[in-house]
């Protein structure tokens, strides 16, 4: 039963992580360079750019970030590795660094990206200038997670392979 739970947690961690980071990477592939939104694209909610923004905003990746984080934390806790990972002790230091980076990424999604994205999409009332300002912040927040995912994946890999670091 314990093995089944461990396997389920690891599986959930992988699937949810791929959904989360996959959404982020897909936005980088679709729009590799920053292209500012224009006021007319926001004021007309039928504009193709605005519709594309709305279609991407189904909340799936935000909740995937929570599942990834919870499953990762539970795995560490069940193995008795959580205190060592938190304290970056010995062989648990790499996965500890990965855990801190993943936590920052999840907080970035919920505390920086989402509140500003709600204004961009008009879910929270705001003037056009404020919505344009928020669209720049959501871009930087999203790319921060793209950037952080690179060391995160490295430390996840080295955490389970050990030895190298």
């Amino acid at each position, binding site marked *: 039963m314990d093995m089944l739970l461990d396997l389920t947690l690891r599986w959930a961690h992988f699937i949810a992580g791929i959904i989360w980071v996959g959404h982020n990477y897909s936005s*980088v*592939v679709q729009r*590799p*360079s*920053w292209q500012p939104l224009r006021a007319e694209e926001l004021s007309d909610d039928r504009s193709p750019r605005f519709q594309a923004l709305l279609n991407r905003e189904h909340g799936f990746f935000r909740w995937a970030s929570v599942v990834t984080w919870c499953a990762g934390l539970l795995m560490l806790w069940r193995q008795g590795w959580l205190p060592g990972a938190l304290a*970056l002790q*010995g062989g648990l*230091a*790499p996965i500890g*660094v990965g855990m801190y980076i993943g936590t920052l990424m999840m907080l970035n999604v919920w505390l920086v990206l989402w509140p500003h994205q709600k204004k961009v999409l008009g879910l929270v009332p705001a003037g056009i200038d404020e919505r344009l300002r928020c669209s720049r912040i959501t*871009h*930087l927040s999203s*790319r*921060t997670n*793209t*950037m*952080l*995912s*690179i*060391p995160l994946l*490295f*430390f996840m890999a*080295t955490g389970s392979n050990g030895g190298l*670091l």
Partner: protein
Amino acid sequence: MRHPYDTARGTIALGVLLTLVLAALVRLLAG
């Protein structure tokens, strides 16, 4: 002036740089 995050290349370069710095720090911590 453009931000490194304004291109995919800049974002990836920063990510690789941060990886190298953190890996060096972890090695230092272990040593």
